[in-house]
C-alpha cells in the first residue's frame, strides 16, 4: 500500500510536464480550405498564403481534430 501524499507534498511537487506534440503539415497536399484553422479548439494554426502553418505549437493539446477533419490528408499530429 502506498502512503497517502500529504497536502504539503502535493503542493510542493513540481508541475507535471506537459506532453509535447509535433504538427506535420504536408504542404504539397494542402489545398488551403482552412477547416483545420477554423475548428482548432486552442487556435494553434493559421493560414500562411495558400497553405496552413503552425502559429503557436505550445497550445496544442494533441486532440487530433485537425487531422480528423482534414479532407486532404495534409496534417497530422505526432507525440514527441
Amino acid at each position: 500500500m502506498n502512503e497517502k501524499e500529504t497536502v504539503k507534498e502535493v503542493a510542493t511537487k513540481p508541475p507535471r510536464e506537459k506532453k509535447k506534440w509535433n504538427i506535420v503539415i504536408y504542404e504539397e497536399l494542402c489545398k488551403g480550405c482552412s477547416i483545420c484553422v477554423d475548428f482548432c479548439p486552442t487556435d494553434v494554426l493559421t493560414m500562411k498564403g495558400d497553405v496552413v502553418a503552425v502559429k503557436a505549437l505550445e497550445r496544442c493539446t494533441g486532440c487530433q481534430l485537425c487531422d480528423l477533419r482534414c479532407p486532404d490528408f495534409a496534417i497530422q499530429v505526432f507525440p514527441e
Partner: protein
Amino acid sequence: MAGEAAVKVPYREKRPFDYSQYIRKGKLPHIWCAGCGHGIVLKSLLRAIHASGLSKDEICMVSGIGCSSRTPGYVDFNTLHTLHGRAIAYATGVKLAKPNLKVFVATGDGDALAIGGNHFIHACRRNIDMVILVYNNYIYGMTSGQASPTTPQGMVATTSRYGHIDPPFDTCEMAKAAGATFVARGTAYHCQELEKIFYEAIHHKGTAVIDILDSCPTYYGRLNKMKSASEMMLKVEKDGTVPVAQAAKLPPEKLEGKKLRGILYRAERPEYCEEYFKLIERVHG
C-alpha cells in the same frame, strides 16, 4: 433499433492513423475541391475498415459516376468504377459471384437516387449484404451544380436560380421503406461518430444504407451564400442535424427543419446471398 447503445469501436491509440497503408501510391492529392467533405468521409471509412480488421483483399469497392464515385480510385482495395447510377447493380453481381467479399458502394445523391434510383430501392428490397454510402452534398458537383433529388426547397442551384421548388427525397426514409435493414445518417463534421456508424454497418449482415451529409463549397456553398467550407459544415451539418437519442427529448418545434443523425433503423431479415445459395443446394439435391 433506433437510438440503442452503439457497438464500441476498438480502442485507438492517441496518435495519428497511418492512411498510407490503404491509399494507392502516387494518387494524392485527390481531385476533390478545397473544403470538399468527401475526403473527411473517406478518412473515416478507412479508420473504420482498419478497426474492423478486414484485409485489403477481402474488400471490393464499387462506384458509379460523380465526385463521390472517384473514391475507389484512391483506395488500395479491389475496386470497380462503373456506369452512372449502375454501381449497385454491378455490386450485386460482385457479391453474388464472390460472396466472401465485403462490398462497399460509394455513390452520390444524384447517382444513387436519381439516375440509379431503381437499383437503389431494389437492392434494399433484396437485402443483399453490402454497405451503400450515399455522399449527400445536395447538388451535382461534378457537372457544375445542378439541382439533385436531395436539394432542399428554396435553395439555389445552377438549374434553379430563383430557388428550388421540388420537395427533396429523404434517403433514410426511402431506404427503410424499400426494405434496407440498417439505415443511418452521419455527417462529415461529426467524423468520429461517422466512423462508429461505418464500423457497425460493416458488421451488419444485409443492406446497410448510410446517408452522409457533406459539403460542396464550390457550388452549393457559393450559390447559397455560405462563404467557406467551415461555415457550411457548421450550418448544414452541425446546426442542421440532431442526434437520434436526443431527438426523443426535444419538443417538436425544435426539431423542425432538422435531420436526425445516428443509427435510425436496424432489423434482422434473411440475406439475399444466403437464400440464393440455399436455393442452389435445394435444387441440386
